């Protein structure tokens, strides 16, 4: 029941480069799209999030681009650093105004930034 498809599965980027991770969804009831970052042995932590009424959101080196008509969204990490090496998950919440804000996660992208 994969409702959020994420690619690539893994990504190697040189320090200073741009990391790009893509996600696609099918359920039009999704209305909140967070990205989580997970380091080994740790729980996921919220990185940045976007609502479908905007096409882009930027926080520091992290940018989400959102294409509502294509039902796709992506994470761009500018000036990637070795400390960014982690697993990144896109996620979606169906019916954000409902009683249960359960996150539906993508399968994750393992990012390695080489020094």
């Amino acid at each position, binding site marked *: 029941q994969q409702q959020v498809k*994420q690619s690539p599965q893994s990504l190697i980027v040189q320090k200073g480069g741009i990391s790009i991770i893509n996600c696609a969804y099918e359920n039009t009831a999704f209305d*909140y799209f*967070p990205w989580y970052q997970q380091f080994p*042995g*740790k*729980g*996921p*932590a*919220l990185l940045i*999030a976007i609502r479908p009424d905007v096409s882009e959101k930027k926080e520091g080196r992290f940018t989400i681009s959102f294409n509502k008509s294509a039902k796709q969204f992506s994470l761009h990490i500018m000036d990637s650093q070795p400390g960014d090496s982690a697993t990144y*998950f896109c*996620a979606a*919440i169906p019916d*954000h*105004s409902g*009683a*249960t*804000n*359960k*996150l*539906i*996660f*993508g*399968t*994750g992208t393992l990012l390695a930034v080489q020094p």
Partner: protein
Amino acid sequence: GAGVSQSPRYKVAKRGQDVALRCDPISGHVSLFWYQQALGQGPEFLTYFQNEAQLDKSGLPSDRFFAERPEGSVSTLKIQRTQQEDSAVYLCASSERVQSGTLHFGNGTRLTVT
């Protein structure tokens, strides 16, 4: 504590044993979630509590899985008669408000069933 605390950090169980996993959410957080994360996969939703009420248990894989949050704070996930396919990291998350999109995750309990 500043964050969500889970215990034990690691649990090894023989097949058929019962296990209990504990979650201490951030104080005052209304919502509490349990997720299961298999190796190399994204977390999968198990169940959701709003205070002490279990409002959604649609993700529990079988009736061997049971969760409770009797006083609206600490929660326990219990797995009866563990099977090898139950081996995973079990993550607990809490959020301050019902309609908050920000979940605060604990570091999980890694369960290995031998």
